[in-house]
């Protein structure tokens, strides 16, 4: 004998007896199984649902303290880098680029190169505005009697850089840009006049005599 309790040996004996298969019952069960609806093919909604279930299913993650520290340091360094990037001095017209991206009085060499006609006592002024997406830009000021259509700027390629060269006499000139016939805009690269009597801000151009 096995040395077990007698009731235990009886139980094992019963379990070891061969099972007599009831063929009728088996056929009935198989019939019911066949009648059950077959599994429908996976649809897009099912995939999304599965993904959402996977997303919200709780898990236990094991992370070492070192890994947590490294991750925290990366996050802090990233935040500092973004902060510095956002607060660094903004230079819209860095150094020598001013003459290209800002309104300026054309120098003698450039004037010769442009061969632009001027009267004695006049200087050439290159009005520049960066306005990508604009379809029309004009400069309006006391030098063209504030005529909105008198001095259109030309777009240089598709860069959004609009320019026009205008001969102006020495002195103080007040002006602004009109973008798309709708937006009144002071020159970003020029000194501002105080907000005028008509609640708009103009720019000032001072040309030495």
């Amino acid at each position, binding site marked *: 004998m096995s040395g077990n309790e007698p009731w235990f040996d009886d139980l094992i004996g019963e379990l070891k007896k061969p099972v007599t298969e009831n063929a009728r019952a088996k056929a009935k069960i198989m019939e019911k199984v066949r009648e059950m609806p077959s599994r429908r093919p996976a649809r897009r909604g099912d995939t999304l649902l599965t993904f959402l279930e996977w997303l919200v299913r709780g898990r236990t993650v094991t992370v070492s303290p070192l890994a947590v520290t490294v991750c925290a340091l990366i996050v802090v360094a990233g935040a500092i880098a973004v902060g510095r990037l956002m*607060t*660094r*001095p*903004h*230079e*819209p017209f860095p150094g020598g680029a*001013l003459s290209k991206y800002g309104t300026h009085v054309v120098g003698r060499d450039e004037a010769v190169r442009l061969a632009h006609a001027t009267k004695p006592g006049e200087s050439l002024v290159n009005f520049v505005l*960066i*306005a*990508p*997406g*604009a*379809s029309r830009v004009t400069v*309006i000021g*006391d030098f063209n*009697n*504030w*005529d*909105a259509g008198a001095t259109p700027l030309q777009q240089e390629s598709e860069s959004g850089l609009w320019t026009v060269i205008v001969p102006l006499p*020495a*002195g*103080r000139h*007040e002006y602004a840009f*009109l*973008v*798309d*016939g*709708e*937006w*009144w*805009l*002071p020159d*970003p*690269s020029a*000194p*501002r*006049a*105080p*907000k*005028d*009597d*008509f*609640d*708009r*801000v*103009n720019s*000032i151009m*001072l040309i*030495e005599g």
Partner: protein
Amino acid sequence: MCRRPLTSLLLCCIFAVLGLSPCRAQPGKPLGDETLEAVSLMMDSARAESLPAETLMQKALEGSTKGATDQKIREAVRALLNRLRLAKKALGSDATPPELTTAAGAIYAGVDTSGIRRLKEAQAVRKTGDPSNDQTLAAEFVVLADLISRNVPVDTASQVVIGLAEANVGFAEIFEFRRLVEQDIRSGAVPAESAYRRARRLAPSLPPFGREPARQPGDSR
């Protein structure tokens, strides 16, 4: 805005980044007869007082282009004539037209006539040191008005610009100074502090920021 919403949005974003506030233009209209007559009379007065009369007509045309009412235009032209008178009184009869118009702009920005007179005195100091120097005060007035429009307090802006004039800072340098201050302000600097710090590099005689000389009794600077 409705026609090209995306373009307008893009432009607004760019202007916002540059610290500008674009205003919507209104359709201009020709000046009315009454306004034309009033402006002509004021121009006659200006000529008689040796003031730059053409500036008045330009102001009227500007108002017209900006869609202002005739009454608003007449008021603006009258106010400009008064500012030109104040400027001439402070600067004297030898003031040039650009000096008068720029000083009128500074007055409009909030500088009082004693501030204008102090700049005139600084110019005299400059000429004493260098008799060949014929630089006008127009650049100083333009920069002064610009600083005030960028939230530099009137007192500080006046102090700084007077310091620059006394230090004989040239035309190009003073405009570069303005550009650098504007850049600082756009980067988040305190306007008054930036103006002072930048000015002291060009005019070391200016006292450090926060230790400006106390106002004298009766000094309305």
